[in-house]
C-alpha cells in the first residue's frame, strides 16, 4: 500500500456468477500492470480477497450469466452497491456457453448425470436446502439488473480490460478500438 489516503482510490468489486473464471484470469493478464492498478484502485469483494459481501463501490465487474437464485442475489447486491456495473465477457452479456442448456429438457438431464450414468452409486438428484435453487434457464445479467457497460469476448483480452479500466478510472468514456473488440 502507498501512503495515499484510502479515499483517493476507487473501490472495485468483482464476482463470477455462472462463468468459468476465464474473465477473471484475463483481468490478471494485465500482468505486472496489476501493481500500477492497485495504486489507484482497491478491491472490495472479489475472488482475490476474503471480503464476502460487496460494500459501496465505484466499479463492479460481473463475469458469468445468471443460473441460480444465489446468482440473482449476488447480482442484485452488486447493483445496489456499485455506481458503475460492467458485464464482462460473453456469459454475462448473453449467457455464453452455459446457456446451451436452455434448449434442453430439465428433469431428464439431471436424471442422466446423477442417476443413469454408468458408474453412479446411490444415484439421486442432489436436493439439499443448502444448494441454491436453479433457474430453468441461464439469463444474461441485463435481464435482471441495469448494466452500464458491456465488454465482449470470451474472455475479453487483458489489453481490453486494461484499456477499459484506465479510461474509466481517468474519467473518460471507455472506448475499445477495433482490435480490442473481439468476440472469441
Amino acid at each position, binding site marked *: 500500500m502507498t501512503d495515499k489516503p484510502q479515499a483517493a482510490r476507487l473501490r472495485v468489486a468483482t464476482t463470477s456468477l455462472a462463468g*468459468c*473464471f476465464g474473465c*477473471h484470469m484475463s483481468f490478471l493478464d494485465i500482468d505486472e500492470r*496489476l501493481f500500477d492498478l492497485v495504486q489507484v484502485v*482497491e478491491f472490495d469483494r472479489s475472488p*482475490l480477497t476474503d471480503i464476502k459481501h460487496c460494500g459501496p463501490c465505484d466499479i463492479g465487474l460481473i463475469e458469468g450469466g445468471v443460473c*441460480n437464485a444465489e446468482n440473482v442475489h449476488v447480482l442484485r447486491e452488486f447493483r445496489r452497491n456499485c455506481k458503475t456495473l460492467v458485464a464482462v465477457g460473453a456469459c454475462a452479456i448473453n449467457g455464453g456457453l452455459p446457456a446451451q*442448456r436452455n434448449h434442453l429438457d430439465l428433469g431428464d438431464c439431471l436424471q442422466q448425470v446423477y442417476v443413469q450414468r454408468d458408474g*453412479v452409486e446411490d444415484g439421486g438428484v*442432489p436436493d439439499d436446502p443448502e444448494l441454491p435453487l436453479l433457474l430453468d434457464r441461464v439469463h444474461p445479467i441485463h435481464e435482471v439488473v441495469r448494466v452500464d457497460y458491456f465488454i465482449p469476448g470470451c474472455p475479453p483480452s487483458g489489453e481490453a480490460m486494461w484499456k477499459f479500466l484506465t479510461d474509466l478510472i481517468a474519467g473518460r468514456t471507455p472506448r475499445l478500438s477495433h482490435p480490442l473488440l473481439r468476440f472469441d
Partner: protein
Amino acid sequence: MDSSLETAEHRDHLRRVVIDPVSRVEGHGKVTLLLDDEDQVQEARLHIVEFRGFEVFIQGRPYWEVPVMVQRLCGICPVSHHLAASKALDRVVGAMAITASAEKMRRLMHYGQILQSHALHFFHLSSPDLLFGFESDVGQRNIVGVAAAYPDVARQGVLLRKFGQEVIRATAGKRIHGTGSIPGGMNRHLSVADRDALRSDVGRMVEWSRSAVELVKRLHRADPSLYDNFGRFRANMMSLVRADGAMDLYHGALRFRDADGKILLDGVPDQAYRGLLREQVKPWSYMKFPYLQQLGPEVGWYQVGPLARVQNCDSIPSPLAEAERREFIDHGAGEPVRATLAYHWARMIELLHTAEVIRDLLDDPDLLDGPLVAVGERQHEGVGIIEAPRGTLIHHYQVGDDDLVTMCNLIVSTTHNNQAMNTAVREVARRYLNGRKLTEGLLNHIEVAIRAYDPCLSCATHALGQMPLVLELADARGQVLERVVRD
C-alpha cells in the same frame, strides 16, 4: 469413507455457521457447520453449489467442436480440458499415436499451463495465508497485501504466471480459450520469434521457481508443528505415471497407492478407467464422490494433485525437481507426507519441474517443423486422461457415424479430491474450532485447508442442473411452511 461429522445425528436445534463463498479459490463453494450448545462441531460439509451443463449439452455437438467448447469449463486450466478432450478424440479419428511435432507442441502448452496455474494458485491465492498467518487482517490477506509487504515475491509470482500464459499463447493462439489442439494433432507450430522470446526468459523462470520451493521449505521449517499437522489424515493416492514410473503430466498409465504408500494398482491403461472407478452421489453437493471400486466407497476414496503425484511417481525426470522430490520424500521419514499444507510444497516442486521441462523442450526443432496431424481408422469411443494442475482429469466420449457426440463423461480433478477436501474440513473443524468462539480468522482455517487443494469448483460443476423453479418458505428451525413449484 470417514463419515464422522459428515451428518449430525440430530440436526434440529444445532446452530448453523456458513462460509459463503469460499474465497480465494476458483469457482463456487460454501461450507456449512452445525454446532451444538457447547460449540462442538457436529457436522461440517463442503458444498458445491453451482452447476452448469457441459456433460449433457456436449452430447449432440460435432466432435471436432469439443476441444474448444470444453475449455469454457474452467478459465484457470482451459488447456487441461482442451488437451484431455483432444486426447480422447485422437482415438476417435484413429490417431492412436500423434506426430512428434504435435505431441511436443501439446506438451509445451500443457507444461506452460501447469506453470501458470501453480504460480497463480500459490502466489495470488494462497501465499497471503502462509506469509501473514491464517488469522491476519482480512484487508491485508490478499495479493495486494503481499505486493506491499513482499514486493519481490509478488512480482516473481505475477511474472511466472505471465510466462506460463505466454507459453499458452504461443502454442494455442490465445492466452485463455485458444484453439491449438485438434483431434489427431495440432494446427500450428511454434514460431521462431515466440521460441526466442520464451527462451530468453526461461532461465529466470527456473531460478524463480527454485526460490518458490525455498520459500515453502522456509515456511515449513519455521513452524513444523503447524505445517506437519494441519489437516493431516490418511488417504489413498492416484495419478498417471510414465511406463518407467517417472512423473509425466501429459500421458501415462494410472497408478494407485494406499495410505501407507504401498502400490495397489499399477499400469492401468487410460482406456480402462471405467472398470476401476465409481462415483457416489450425495444429496447435499452437486459434486460426486469417486472411489476405487475394489475398495468400496468407505475406504476407496483417494487424493489427486501435486501431493499425490510427487509421492506416487518413482522419480521426476528433471534434475532440480528430482533433488527436491527426494528431500520431500525424506521429510516423510518412511511414511507418506500427509499434511494438507504439504500440497503447497509439492506444488512448488512441480512448478520447478515444469520450468525445467519447458526450458529443455524449447531447444527441440520438432516444435518448429514437421507433420502435425495423424489420422487412422475411425473409432466410436475414446478416453483421454491428463494430469491437470489439480490432478487427474478424465474425458470420455462416444461419437456416432454422423460425427455427433452421443455420450460425454467427465471426471475432473477437483471431483477426485471431493472426499479428501471434506475430510480436511472436518479434521480442521475438529481440531481448531471445537468449543471456541468462531471468529473470521478461525473460519479462515477451514478455507486454508480447502485452498491447499487448489480446488477448481467451476470445473466440478460441469454436470447439468436443470430443475423447475421451486420456492420454499421455511421457519427458523428449517421446517418448510410453504412450497411453490413452477414447472
